[in-house]
């Protein structure tokens, strides 16, 4: 049942039918066996004094992940996570010791981490990481702006959708890395080529998720907006886009990680800079610990990028907890 007035301070409009039922039976029980005053005090305690924040908390409680991530469990959870990392390092060492991984090509975790610290401290690895991050940011920003624009357009206009549909169906499945040679030939080596490749690869999830989000804006919200006198552009800006935002962020998250992959590809194959080039260079020279350190940094960038988009999502789409979680 959707929560219609989530911020209503009194009454039980913001409780699920099941909660209401269980509270009713609890009240009945108490009234019968304990007395009235105790019931009201207890109910206030259950509902909490800050009832406006209540539905949000309840909505988060419905998924296991959010419940596990509750503040109370955070230290335990972090400790378990660190335990998992230690376990992974142990698995790596065991694989080396049993020669599943060729020993001369798979350096020990200690060697990798000392290479990591040296190379970051002395500069080359930090430099490569910065180059990768910069190329990623340019490509991703291009893809995001083009993708949101195009997606909104094809989401709003059936004719635009019809015109681009077949074209997108042909273009989308082309693995972007297949365009590496063309991009090199037509755009040369460097940032322009990288930007083209990165944005070509990562624009599709943004386009299609934005389109989906725009299409699926609650008709009730649209009608309410119209009744309140919003004209076309204002309606798009104030109702459609905010309504589509959760879907847009899903697309941006996918796009961000694809963009990292393609950034590294473009560096590996064609550009003389960045982490892809760094790893390739050290592998050719035979500095395996340095090559692995480059991989670890690349993974960290991927991880941070994902976390950053998630955080932006959480900051921007604060109402999601109510609108999505409210009907569970």
């Amino acid at each position: 049942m959707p929560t219609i007035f989530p911020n209503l301070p009194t009454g039980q409009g913001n409780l699920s039918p099941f909660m209401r039922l269980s509270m009713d039976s609890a009240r009945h029980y108490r009234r019968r066996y304990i007395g009235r005053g105790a019931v009201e005090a207890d109910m206030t305690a259950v509902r909490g004094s800050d009832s406006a924040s209540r539905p949000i908390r309840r909505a988060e409680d419905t998924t296991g992940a959010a419940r596990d991530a509750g503040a109370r469990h955070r230290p335990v959870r972090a400790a378990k996570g660190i335990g998992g990392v230690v376990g992974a390092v142990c698995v790596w060492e065991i694989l080396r010791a049993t020669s599943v991984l060729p020993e001369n090509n798979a350096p020990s975790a200690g060697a990798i981490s000392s290479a990591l610290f040296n190379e970051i401290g002395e500069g080359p690895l930090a430099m490569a990481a910065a180059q990768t991050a910069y190329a990623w940011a340019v490509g991703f920003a291009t893809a995001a702006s083009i993708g949101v624009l195009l997606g909104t357009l094809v989401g709003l206009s059936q004719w635009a959708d019809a015109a681009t549909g077949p074209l997108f169906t042909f273009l989308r499945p082309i693995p972007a890395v297949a365009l590496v040679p063309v991009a090199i030939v037509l755009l040369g080596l460097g940032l322009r080529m990288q930007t083209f490749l990165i944005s070509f690869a990562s624009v599709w999830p943004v386009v299609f998720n934005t389109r989906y989000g725009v299409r699926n804006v609650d008709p009730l919200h649209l009608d309410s907006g119209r009744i309140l006198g919003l004209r076309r552009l204002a309606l798009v800006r104030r109702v459609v886009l905010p309504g589509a935002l959760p879907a847009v962020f899903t697309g941006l998250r996918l796009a961000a990680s694809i963009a990292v992959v393609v950034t590294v590809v473009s560096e590996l194959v064609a550009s003389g800079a960045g982490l892809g080039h760094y790893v390739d260079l050290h592998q050719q020279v035979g500095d395996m610990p340095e090559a692995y350190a480059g991989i670890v940094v690349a993974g960290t960038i991927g991880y941070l990028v994902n976390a950053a988009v998630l955080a932006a999502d959480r900051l921007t789409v604060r109402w999601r907890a109510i609108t999505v979680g409210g009907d569970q």
Partner: protein
Amino acid sequence: MSRVQGRSRRVRQARGARRAVGVLTSLAVLGMWEAVGRSGSVMFLEPFSVAARGAWDLVSGPGLRQDVLPSATRTVIGFFVGSSLGVAAGLLLGHFRALDPWVRPVLEFLRAVPLPAVLPVAVLAFGPNSGTRVGLIALGAVWPVLLNTMDGARTVDAGFVDAARAAHVGRWRVVSRVIWPACLPQVFAGLRIALGISLIMMVISEMVASTSGLGFFVLQAQRAYAFQDMYAGILVLGLLGGLFTLLFTVVEYHMLAWYEGQKGIGRG
């Protein structure tokens, strides 16, 4: 003629018009490519007709067995191996929820590692052979499937599982008959991402230290300034990607047919 019939005919006409607009736009883009390619105003851009002829030569000549089929086979094997591993591990980790906080940070990190960065190292460690490439494709396909299956299995309606337990259904059958079907939609969402990654990994793995495959063919053509072959290879890669996506969509449609009808039930 009744009003309803008139309306349905108008709807059909509008749909036909839209389809025509779509085809016309695609033709216009191809026409632009052709015209710009012929005019020679953009250096190294071959017209579409030349690329299409090259693509036909590639799939009808010896190139089919030398480059196209190895690429397709590697993609398919890598995708299947990776996604099966992902499903198995995902069901396991999703079912035993206590494991989640232990493994999730590691999994999230491993997923975030851009595999192309691993490519040179892997080729050096395991040799520049087909096995290494298939392994990398599988490694790319594992993560989205694993994490999606894991989340799907974790968030299966507890009521379903309880109902099955109450009916004395065994643990294994609960997984195979209740949890697995319930998380199937999410698994397919992961598989779709995995398919795209498999294609990317196929191309890029064939660009490094390879002697066969479409990725090798395209890069080789570029380095030899054989631009007809280069554009032809890209066209074939695009068609291959389209073909795989189409097959995937058909399978998904059949396996999730029950789900379309279920949406919305059990919520209100």
